[in-house]
């Protein structure tokens, strides 16, 4: 009996190892296009499509990057634009969602339930459906073809409101009662007590908004026409339209557009785990 159980354990270990290898292979397949992209971005045009694939370029070159960054097209400007739009959108989104999430979770006021239902109902409508009417509204407001057409709409988030409402609702009400007895007004309760306790939620939402704004293609495509206002995704597409179409350039531009997102995500993944752990301890 004992040996049988032992065998079972050993068998389990083998299965675990096999599954690990399988999943590592799956994972590698998933990132293969990125590896190819990275490798192509360091190759001269003539080496990109050689077969068998040279995963590590024989004599790597940097000229794709230098040409993309400040060559034919002002990629550095697209980069700066994207940083600007993304940071302002993220800050705006976090502030408005914190306030509205807190209102829905912690304050009783007239009209709250109806407004909440309204927020919920509009989630059913996909963003792509809103693009055309937004075009009309932005022209009417005079923000068409300005950064505001990207920043303002991204500065409100129904998703963020729901997410942060969840976090605020999970806080114990004793905290707030104690604060009220100590004479805190609502804004102090919000700023001093509630906001610091939902930092995990803020981190999660920040990453989400940042990634969304950074990668957003549909909104700039619809609402930005001036070249000097282009964001990275529009910029990468510009390289595709060049007469001397260069795959090396496109790959270098793509790599440049992915780096900040990967760095943010890999570092924030740790933060997530930590955030979840700390909120788990406090009850």
């Amino acid at each position, binding site marked *: 009996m004992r040996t049988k159980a032992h065998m079972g354990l050993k068998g389990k270990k083998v299965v675990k190892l096999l599954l690990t290898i399988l999943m590592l292979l799956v994972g590698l397949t998933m990132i293969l296009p990125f590896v190819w992209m990275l490798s192509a971005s360091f190759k001269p045009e003539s080496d990109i499509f050689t077969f068998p694939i040279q995963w590590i370029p024989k004599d790597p070159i940097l000229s794709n990057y230098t040409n993309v960054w400040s060559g034919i097209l002002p990629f550095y400007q697209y980069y700066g634009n994207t940083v600007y739009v993304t940071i302002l959108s993220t800050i705006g989104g976090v502030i408005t969602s914190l306030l509205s999430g807190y209102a829905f979770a912690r304050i009783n006021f007239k009209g709250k339930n109806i407004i909440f239902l309204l927020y919920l109902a509009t989630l059913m409508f996909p963003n792509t459906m809103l693009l055309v009417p937004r075009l009309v509204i932005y022209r009417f407001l005079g923000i068409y073809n300005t950064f505001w057409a990207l920043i*303002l709409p991204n500065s409100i988030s129904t998703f963020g409101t729901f997410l942060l409402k969840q976090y605020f609702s999970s806080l114990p009400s004793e905290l707030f009662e104690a604060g009220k007895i100590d004479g805190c007004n609502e804004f102090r309760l919000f700023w001093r007590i509630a906001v610091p306790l939902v930092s995990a939620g803020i981190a999660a939402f920040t990453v989400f908004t940042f990634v969304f704004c950074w990668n957003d293609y549909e909104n700039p495509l619809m609402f930005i026409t001036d070249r000097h206002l282009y964001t990275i995704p529009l910029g990468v597409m510009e390289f595709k339209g060049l007469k001397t179409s260069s795959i090396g350039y496109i790959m270098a531009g793509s790599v440049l557009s992915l780096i900040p997102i990967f760095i943010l995500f890999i570092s924030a993944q740790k933060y997530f785990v930590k955030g979840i752990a700390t909120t788990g301890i406090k009850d």
Partner: protein
Amino acid sequence: MATATKLDRHAITNLNRLVAKRSIRRSTLIGWCFLLPSFIGFVIFRFLPIICSFLLGFTEWNLVSGFSGIRFAGIDNFIELFHNDTFLTSLLNTLQYAVIVVPFTVALALIFAVIINDKIHCRSLVRLMIYMPYISSMVAVAMVWTSLYSPNYGPINSVLKSIGIENVPGWITSSNSALPALMIIGVWQAVGYYMVLFIAGLQCIPASLYEAAEIDGANAIQCFFKITIPMVSPTTFFVLINCIIGSFNVFTLVKTMTTGGPGDSTMVTVYYVYEQAVEYNKIGYACSASIILFLFVFIITFIQLKFSDRWVHEG
């Protein structure tokens, strides 16, 4: 004495009411102050566009002609749409895309999640690798896949040729294989996101269920079908709804890789809407098309909600 207390009581309840009323009024004011920044944005950027979309769908309007050029068109746009071959093809293509992409994405996401949740080594590394396509810029992704799919010397066809396949597909350059080519990218991109949702769902299943099943002599396959699938069904439901909506809105891949072609083989409805609005300036017509797409999504979601109690396990 008795009347006095009664009076007092009366006064106190009145006072309480007054105080309560005041505090409600006060908290209403404070509540709205907190809500206002988000609410103004919500009205301008979400609520109003939705209303506009429905109203404009019944008009004929060319953006160039200004607001005075709006003409009420009744259901003319809708009639025209249903006689338009390109639009009908776009609906069919969208449907086809969803019918293939959704089941593959959901099934793969669930399988990956189960394996990763089963405490393999290097879990977070594997999770990150599978999740990577999802957080990447769609444009960058589309650009790299365009090169990979390149029919003559692209790496995918080179590999296919080297293993002896002579009749390699033309991928996005041929009308037979363009939509499947986009489907592959669609699954590849979305699977990581849904996998993470499934992992979260799986962690809510009590381990005692599996322990009990093991004592009863159930094997892994039985556990998967009899415990995992029913217990994770609330997540599956959520994933399914989101995945369907997502695949009805495939746009960036089409815009950046094929612009609907070759022929109309990758013309999907969202791209059709975009083309009508931006390239032909037909705002009213474009809105009608997006209303029809919305109705499709709405009906599918409604049916799912209606039948959810038959298979979704109540936690």
